[in-house]
């Protein structure tokens, strides 16, 4: 890779001086090579042969770094699990630029859709609303609510961009809406900002202070370059500011906002919320639901306090105002409370040790650990139950399953972990 890059520079300087002049009108096939920089995806192995970079190992090391940083910062158990998030999407002229392909707004729309689904998966009791900025004016596209489909449908219909962008107008609007939510909720704003300027009617610093006072956590993802005012906003309100380099980076940045942030004690008042756990009615029953005011046949949920019928959970009873949830909704958040420890990497020498031969298979999927890569040593071990896992299972266990199969399948280790806790 170094050779390739070096040769190109040397070549440019010594032999083909005229090549720089014609660089502007390269042939299409030449341009693809310069754009993609395909030589960067090669690496040299021990014997000097070129081979593609081992993406799996790279991916895994990235993932482990992320896991470690998460576990160090999120040592405390408190998380803001009930979130009220407004997504502010900049639909100014800058959003129609084509530096992201096919355009910034197309990329934003695609990933906002994925984000909203992921958000509701990870925060089942939270709510989202969408605000757009267009022609210097902020508009509320969807009211804050809990149904992913309605947000996505509304967003996909309004994707034309024009005019300037105004951060202040958007923040003022959102601030007004978020002041109405209950005190136990975490107020958050996620701004996806394409423009390089903000065209405001008043003093934006006052607006930022106002957001700070109403305890709104503002985060910004920029699509062009870093802006002072965005950074200032995020610093003042405790949010994060990041600028996307390319599409995959943007995706990564936006999905980072899906897991609940650590709760800041002063931001939301801890409270006990009265909730109802309705029973699912029998399949064939007919009744009028309180949400659509229509007679419906079949499944529904009955409010335990006033016996009104609701079609979907989670919701708020239209008659008595009781928050209705099903216990699986709550249980979906419990893995944030009881996270599993990151696994330790196993030195390769351990795997070749004949005494540990029986441990060469991944405990989860029974795959031979030595087979997963050409090189031995790509294995991890759970610090509690000392079972070996392959890298794929490691990622699956920490990202999706949130259970250690080893710890769960031994009663003794279970008792031990309970004591530790």
């Amino acid at each position: 890779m170094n050779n390739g890059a070096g040769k190109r520079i040397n070549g440019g300087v010594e032999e083909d001086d005229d090549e720089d002049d014609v660089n502007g009108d390269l042939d299409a096939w030449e341009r693809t090579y310069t754009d993609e920089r395909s030589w960067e995806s090669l690496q040299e192995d021990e014997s000097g042969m070129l081979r593609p970079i081992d993406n799996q190992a790279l991916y895994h090391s990235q993932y482990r770094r992320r896991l470690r940083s998460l576990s160090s910062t999120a040592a405390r158990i408190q998380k803001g699990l009930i979130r009220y998030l407004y997504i502010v999407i900049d639909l100014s002229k800058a959003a129609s630029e084509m530096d992201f392909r096919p355009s910034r707004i197309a990329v934003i729309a695609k990933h906002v859709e994925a984000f909203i689904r992921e958000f509701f998966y990870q925060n089942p009791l939270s709510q989202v609303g969408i605000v757009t900025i267009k022609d210097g004016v902020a508009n509320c596209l969807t009211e804050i609510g809990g149904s992913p489909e309605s947000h996505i449908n509304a967003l996909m219909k309004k994707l034309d961009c024009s005019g300037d962008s105004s951060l202040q107008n958007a923040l003022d609007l959102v601030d007004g809406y978020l002041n109405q939510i209950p005190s136990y909720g975490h107020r958050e704003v996620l701004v996806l900002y394409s423009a390089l300027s903000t065209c405001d009617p008043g003093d934006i610093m006052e607006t930022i202070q106002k957001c700070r006072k109403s305890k709104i956590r503002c985060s910004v993802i920029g699509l062009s370059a870093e802006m002072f005012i965005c950074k200032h906003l995020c610093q003042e309100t405790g949010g994060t500011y990041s600028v996307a380099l390319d599409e995959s980076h943007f995706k990564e940045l936006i999905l980072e906002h899906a897991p609940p942030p650590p709760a800041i004690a002063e931001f939301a008042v801890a409270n006990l919320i009265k909730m109802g756990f309705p029973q699912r009615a029998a399949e064939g029953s007919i009744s009028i639901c309180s949400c659509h005011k229509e007679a419906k046949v079949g499944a529904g949920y009955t409010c335990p306090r006033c016996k009104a019928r609701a079609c979907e959970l989670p919701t708020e009873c239209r008659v008595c105002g009781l928050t209705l949830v099903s216990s699986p909704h709550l249980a979906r958040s419990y893995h944030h409370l009881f996270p599993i420890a990151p696994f330790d990497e196993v030195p390769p020498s351990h795997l070749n040790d004949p005494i540990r031969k029986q441990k060469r298979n991944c405990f989860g999927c029974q795959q031979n650990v030595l087979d997963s890569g050409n090189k031995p040593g790509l294995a991890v071990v759970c610090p509690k139950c000392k079972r070996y896992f392959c890298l794929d299972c490691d990622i699956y266990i920490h990202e999706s399953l949130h259970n250690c199969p080893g710890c769960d399948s031994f009663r003794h280790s279970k008792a031990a972990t309970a004591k530790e806790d």
Partner: protein
Amino acid sequence: MASAPSKLYADDVSLVVVLLDTNPFFWSSSSLSFSQFLSHVLAFFNAILTLNQLNQVVVIATGYNSCDYIFNSASDLNRSFENGRMPVMSSSLLQKLEEFLIKDEQLSKGEPEGRIKSSLFSGSLSMALCYIQRVFRSGALHPHPRILCLQGSPDGPEQYVAIMNAIFSAQRSEVPIDSCYIGAQNSAFLQQASYITGGVHHKPQNLDGLFQYLMTIFATDLHSRSFIHLPKPVGVDFRASCFCHKNTIDMGYVCSVCLSIFCKHHKKCSTCGSVFGQAQSEAASASDKKRKTPET
């Protein structure tokens, strides 16, 4: 086996991961003996494997102290065909099962008498999901996986969080969890697992006909399920149990920070340690439109 690669892994090829409950505390009190149960189940495995020659069966034993893989038809298949026997070699499966049971029993030595004799369902479910992820990784063409739980022991409340995690992970990767409960009282965990993941839950009334129940309900592949009438859930119990007394409640208090459930108003959350404000939680939970809330 290698013939007709285009028809390889059509939509009716299944991978069935069976979680076999081997809890000795349950089987010693059951009306159906473990050996009778095994004869039903082994015939069922053979039936699945002969329905389609690409079908695969993986058996994971769920014991009282441990869980382990005891059979995988993909690795044992060739040998059995040479002998001209049925695909599931009862001898190799039974041998592994016996080894497992002896090991499981040894682990329970010196263990104080527990209160609830539940099996380690969460462990075997997690292992099954890891195995299924490996099948998903193996390429675009793979058999359609599903999990079948043959359980008799009562639910272990301490496994609640782990089981729910596994259920949601299965739901996310679209793996249905079928469950056949052969114990006395019905299992809320299995009911929820099957309901959430879109699997079938059934509790046979007459255990002597277990093989017929297994064949008619659980042998159908996922593609054919849309054409047949499978037993519908009678109603799923979504009520929660509170963290403080383990009571089942239909109305309760939830900590806004960690979502722990309590049946009474507490001053401090026992899970996350948050101190609750004095504010009327009742009024706060009601939306601003609904000022008037009934007295509770």
